């Protein structure tokens, strides 16, 4: 169908299967341990190992930092399994300044918002939380704007 090829020039299957794996991952985490598996809190809870600043030493971070670290190690492991089985190594050609500036703002924003694509997008929507639905709409909107702007500035 021409419309499908226009909307999804690389096909649908890998997107759908990847999404099902992500859903299975967060579901398995919940069924086995009862934990909610967003990713961005990891970036704050890990600071609690090295910073005595009161915010980082909050109970919500100190008491979850170990499993969040293990979860992150699992992410690396899963990507490596993909690379050695069905996938292949891939290095992005996105410029270093995009990776640095974008990462800093995204990190600041995700922690201020208490959620990212997985926290608000997967876990928040699945929890039927209205703030997460609004957050998803807002970050998709602002990302579309900055992705367009960065291209006019010579970005990839």
């Amino acid at each position, binding site marked *: 169908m021409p419309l499908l090829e226009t909307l999804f020039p690389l*096909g649908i299957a890998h997107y759908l299967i990847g*999404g099902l794996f992500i859903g299975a991952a967060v579901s398995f985490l919940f069924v086995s341990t009862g934990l909610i598996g967003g990713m961005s809190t990891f970036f704050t809870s890990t600071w609690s190992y090295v910073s005595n600043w009161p915010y980082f030493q909050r109970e919500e971070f100190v008491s979850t930092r170990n499993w969040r670290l293990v979860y992150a190690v699992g992410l690396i492991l899963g990507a490596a399994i*993909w690379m050695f089985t069905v996938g292949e*190594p891939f290095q992005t050609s996105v410029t270093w300044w995009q990776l640095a500036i974008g990462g800093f703002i995204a990190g600041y924003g995700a922690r201020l918002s208490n959620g990212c694509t997985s926290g608000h997008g997967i876990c*928040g929507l699945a929890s039927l939380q209205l703030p997460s639905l609004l*957050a998803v709409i807002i970050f998709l909107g602002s990302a579309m704007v900055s992705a367009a702007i960065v291209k006019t500035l010579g970005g990839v």
Partner: protein
Amino acid sequence: MKIQSLFAVLIAGALFGFGLSYSSMIKPEVVLSFLRFEDFGLLWVLGAGSLVTLVTYQLVPRIMTKPLLESVFRTRPSSMDRDTLLGAALFGLGWGICGVCPGPAIAGLGAANWPLVITLLSIFAGSYVQGRLR
């Protein structure tokens, strides 16, 4: 937390990392092409991931009294306030610049996507500044 639980967390993380890789979300070029309306495929990732999780979150606590390895089903903290919405706008702004969100910044290391180390460190830096301003 029990060692069995941490092992389950590791398996969940590995499934997540495999899914992020399989869906090509660890390729910032693909994310940026989605944000520029060139390929809408990421909607399938978000749709499938959140629908499966929706069924789990809504049904499982009604048919199981507790998780297999721990004592309680957690709920996600959520509040409708300025920080949640302003933070989301900033998160999107940054995501659209680099094409990398927190999960892929971590998972990318496992697929030898070394440039993403820059983003990983930047996200840590942004999170540090956010925490220090609290």
